[in-house]
């Protein structure tokens, strides 16, 4: 089997080209800012960005002008407030107009599920009485062929060109394990045409095989494996580091105007060659502050059967 490890620079250069649809997923946790920043550094454009919660990573990418379209279900700085860059793009076309395609959370979950399961649609109990279907004609209905004859909402599959998934650990073949908030990373990875896994740790295949129920993504569907410690900062990785909430609060100020954002991007994205330098640039105080204590999982025995 081939070793799929690449540097982030190599992985983005290889798999992210202008005009593709890209899903950097992870709900509040596991958000791969390292990939977003490398996409900005490599000057990609006309991307369709897909994410349930665009969060700061897409706020930064949209301010940097990499996107022409956004597919999402919740636009917010979680626990803080607005995503000012996305708002500027939608409300004022700064730095460029942004096309949007909007769903509810479950609608996005259902779209990824349909994409992963190769279904023509996925049914869900939502949208009736809401203006969302009026704002998005992709939200339709289907009638049940059974007794009830009930009419139910459906959404179409979504199959991103590339999904980028951050995880605690993966082996060099891309077999990947996550714990904590699993979000829709599994569905996003199976739905995508290409998958880049970014891991805090690269482990031996034997570590993965010692807990097969924990494997969320098999190497079978993974194209590249990037080893990038702290690659999800300022978001978090369960058991590895906490969210850097100070940054989420600071961003609410930094992002109030495009100039401030550009200055920040100049210093923290264009101004560093890679994530290792970004991490080195963080104060040690920061890394100390976001370091969690130990909370080990209860032991489990799979049993040796020979």
């Amino acid at each position, binding site marked *: 089997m081939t070793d799929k490890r690449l540097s982030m620079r190599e992985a983005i250069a290889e798999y992210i080209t202008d005009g593709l649809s890209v899903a950097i997923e992870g*709900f*509040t*946790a596991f958000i791969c800012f390292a990939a977003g920043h490398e996409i900005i550094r490599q000057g990609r454009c006309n991307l369709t960005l897909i994410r*349930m*919660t665009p969060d700061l990573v897409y706020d930064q990418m949209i301010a940097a002008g990499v996107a022409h379209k956004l597919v*999402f*279900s*919740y*636009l*917010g700085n*979680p*626990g803080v407030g*607005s995503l000012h860059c*996305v*708002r500027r793009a*939608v*409300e004022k076309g700064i730095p460029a107009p942004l096309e949007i395609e*909007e*769903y*509810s*959370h*479950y*609608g996005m*979950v259902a779209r990824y*599920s349909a994409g992963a399961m190769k279904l023509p649609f996925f049914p*869900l*109990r*939502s*949208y*009736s*009485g*809401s*203006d*969302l279907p009026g*704002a998005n004609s992709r939200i339709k209905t289907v009638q049940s062929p059974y007794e009830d004859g*009930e009419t139910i909402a459906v959404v179409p599959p979504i199959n991103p060109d590339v999904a980028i998934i951050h995880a605690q650990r993966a082996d060099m073949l891309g077999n990947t394990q996550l714990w*904590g*908030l*699993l*979000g*829709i990373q*599994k*569905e996003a990875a199976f739905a995508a045409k290409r998958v880049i896994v970014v891991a805090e740790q690269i482990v031996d295949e034997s570590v993965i095989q010692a807990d097969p129920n924990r494997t969320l993504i098999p190497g079978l569907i993974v194209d590249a494996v990037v080893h990038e410690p702290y690659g999800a900062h300022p978001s*978090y990785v*369960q058991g590895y580091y*906490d*969210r850097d*909430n100070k940054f*989420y609060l600071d961003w609410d100020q930094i992002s109030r105007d495009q100039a401030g954002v550009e200055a920040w991007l100049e210093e923290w994205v264009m101004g560093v060659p890679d994530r290792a330098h970004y991490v080195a640039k963080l104060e040690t105080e920061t890394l100390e502050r976001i370091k*969690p204590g130990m*909370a080990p999982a209860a032991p489990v025995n799979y049993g040796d059967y020979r």
Partner: protein
Amino acid sequence: MSDFTPSEMMIVSAARALAGIRTVFVGVGLPNIACNLARRTVAPDLELIYESGVYGARPARLPLSIGDPTLVTGAISVMPMADLFGLYLQGGLVEVALLGGAQIDRFGNLNTTVIGDYAAPKVRLPGSGGACEIALNARRIFIIMRLMKRAFVDKLDFYTSPGHLDGGTSRESLNVPGSGPQLVVTDKALFDFDNPEREMQITSLHVGVTLEQVREEVGREVRISESVRETAPPSEAELNLVRVELDPQGMYR
């Protein structure tokens, strides 16, 4: 009787409304404190459900977002969002969900999408998140928001989360699992929808608040329940729990 802030009155009112409830779908901030207060007082079996995929959270600190890692560690179950929305919410296991919005109309419909025109919005709001399906599938909806003229409107700019729609039986005609908004907790008064028109009506005024003040804020005639009363102020015990244990830094005073 010690004095208290309007936020504390909201927290305590929401907590009391959760008496005996088993499951609540909740966000962060004030509603989160209300649920934890209920757990310590009137709803010992209450389990908190977060759309991030957490059932039965046991936070060791005040969560800063609905995806805070402290909601994961020590929780009863943490699952893919497909299971949270499919098995728990759509599965009918959510008894009460707490919602809010930028705009609410007299029938409890909520707007969290845009102010102005959708295609060219004056203000682009966060959007639905899970709110649309929560509003339809949770058995009961409690709405928590401050009483402000610009929020309590005659006509929403966008219907994100359906309440009682046009009132009367119009929601029933949707044939959805949830019974819709039952309560609105504000900083000045409590409202319910217990009338044939399913129209928001004042059921309780917080201590020191007058009907005129409420009308003033809502900016229109407000329906009043025959059984309107004064909200019982927070007890010492309730205030102690909030101030000493649940929000020691007073982030949500």
